[in-house]
């Protein structure tokens, strides 16, 4: 599984959604991406990519697409 597949799987599994919804997915755009969903998603990304995401980046992680840019900071390239 490449990084994009792993990254996508975190979202589809955490939020129980289809991958067709990922491109436009943002914080609070679906009921499942609420405060607890947000932290579950962050934890799942940390486990998947063996990283620890800093507080500022957790706050900035507001969408599926923007999250890819954040993970670049942790040397995780999503493509």
């Amino acid at each position, binding site marked *: 599984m490449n990084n994009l597949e792993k990254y996508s799987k975190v979202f589809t599994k955490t939020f129980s959604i289809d991958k067709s919804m990922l491109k436009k997915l943002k914080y609070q755009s679906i009921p499942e991406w609420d405060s*607890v969903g*947000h*932290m579950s998603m962050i934890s799942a990304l940390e486990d998947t990519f063996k990283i620890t995401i800093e*507080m500022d980046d957790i706050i900035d*992680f507001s969408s599926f697409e923007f999250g890819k840019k954040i993970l670049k900071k942790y040397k995780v390239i999503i493509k």
Partner: protein
Amino acid sequence: MNSKELLEYQPNRPPFLMIDYVTKVLPGKFAEGYKKLIKTEWYFPIHFPGNPNMPGALQLEALAQMLTVAITTLPGNRGKVTHAISHKVKFKKEVKPGRKFIIKTKVNFWNRGICRGIGIGFTDGDIACEAEMTITIPDILDKFLPKK
């Protein structure tokens, strides 16, 4: 922790405070204690007339309140309000008036304002109920959320 000290760590108040004493606590790890069910508890006459027993919802509340103590005793968390997020519970035995409802809870995960843990309630040496619980301290969790 006696009933007076408990009030510093558990924001609920009588008649909705479902624990009397905390007998053991390791902040961030576990909390145990009990509630003595006196015959004049407000719910016994109505749950049910002729067959009083502690409502399942209140047994679960007791477990959640005890789990709260396990995290509000961590440095910096004293007095903080907690919210329930989700609980999964099984009820196994009725809890009758005059009994001691013994409560044991354990923290499995605590990070960034979210606590996942388990709780077991005992009556007369038997398991009365057991639950998997997720609670949060919104004051902490909110600091990690994207701004609108």
